[in-house]
């Protein structure tokens, strides 16, 4: 029986707390529902704006390939990483965002399109951005509910990042599978820094949305 993805793990700059409950509906949708939270420790560098940025890969077991996004979310397909074994980049990951809510920049004066999770799903009553100003510390969190009715594998890498200093405070990799309307193989691990795949996904996001600094930027 699935136990959810729960617990606390420390990294150099703080601690991750996972509080995701497994949801299993017979013949229906299965998934994980709840919060992820990173709290910086006293030794972490200061930031006025600690935020969570997440990449994701969804594999459809019926095809063995990445889920094909359609409708308003079709642009997620373009935002996926391309596998590059020489650089340690896995294919099929993309920044977890709502493509239906975002449009590529068309002119230089346009604001950058945000890759941060809560700029799409603020879930104000159950999640927040954080900060670390000396002894004044507030963790950053997000609320999530990935799940599907089909056999599939969900993989995530979530980073706590200072939006003002660009520093990654820590990351967490978490995943689960859906098989026969059951949640299986839940796992998670905490890390000090992000993967090459994470960087590649953010780069691809910037290219797709023509953010400042990208080769596609207007």
């Amino acid at each position, binding site marked *: 029986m699935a136990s959810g993805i729960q617990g606390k793990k420390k990294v150099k700059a703080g601690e991750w707390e996972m509080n995701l409950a497994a949801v299993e509906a017979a013949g229906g949708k299965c998934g994980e529902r709840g919060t992820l939270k990173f709290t910086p420790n006293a030794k972490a560098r200061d930031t006025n704006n600690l935020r969570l940025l997440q990449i994701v890969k969804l594999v459809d077991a019926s095809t063995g390939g990445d889920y094909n996004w359609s409708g308003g979310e079709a642009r997620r397909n373009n935002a996926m990483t391309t596998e590059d074994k020489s650089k340690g980049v896995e294919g099929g990951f993309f920044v977890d965002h709502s493509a*239906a809510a975002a449009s590529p920049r068309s002119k230089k004066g346009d*604001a950058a399109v945000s890759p941060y999770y809560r*700029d799409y799903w603020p879930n104000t009553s159950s999640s927040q951005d954080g900060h670390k100003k000396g002894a004044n510390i*507030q963790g950053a969190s997000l609320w999530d509910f*990935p799940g599907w009715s089909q056999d599939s594998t969900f993989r995530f890498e979530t980073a706590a990042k200072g939006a*003002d200093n660009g520093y990654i405070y820590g990351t967490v990799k978490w995943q689960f599978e859906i098989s026969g309307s059951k949640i299986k193989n839940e796992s998670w691990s905490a890390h000090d820094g992000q993967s090459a795949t994470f*960087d590649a996904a953010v780069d691809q996001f910037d290219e797709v949305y023509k953010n400042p*600094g990208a080769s596609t930027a207007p």
Partner: protein
Amino acid sequence: MSARLRGSRGFPSRVGLLVAATALALAACSSSSRSLPSGPDSEPNQTPVAKPATDHHAQDRKGMTKASAEQIRDLVGKLSDDPDPLHNDMTPAVHELGKLGIQILPYLEKSLLSADEMTRLHAQRALEAAVNRHFGFQPGAGWIPREGEASARQAFQQNGSYDFEDDPAARQAAVKAWLDWYAKTAQ
């Protein structure tokens, strides 16, 4: 490994997009017996919520159209259709309803009180999307200004902090509070 700044840093504020909203709106919020914690955690340094408001409907008017009752009812009827596998609480109808702003609130009553948990969750997200926009949230850009989140959070708390998992009495009370808030705010 440190991250690069490109494309993932703070965003420039947009002057004039939203006059720091809400004292009037918040004053119009119906009273609640619940206390007013600041959020998931305490936020000791957060900017005080109450600000002079000159036009708390400014954000509602920005980019929003007056929808017909038929259009809103149609979207509410599709509230739980085709959820995003990455975000089961979100559906295309939730997204579209959020765009329409707080005018949708009266149409969400039955869904917020539904016996079906997922219907309530989707209705909650539509409610939140509409109210968040009212206080300056722009999907893909975040809160403009940033302090808008504190205003939205306070409004949610003052109106009973509707939660799809709450017991029916709490949900009923929160729905009544939101409908009262809408009746005052939409005047």
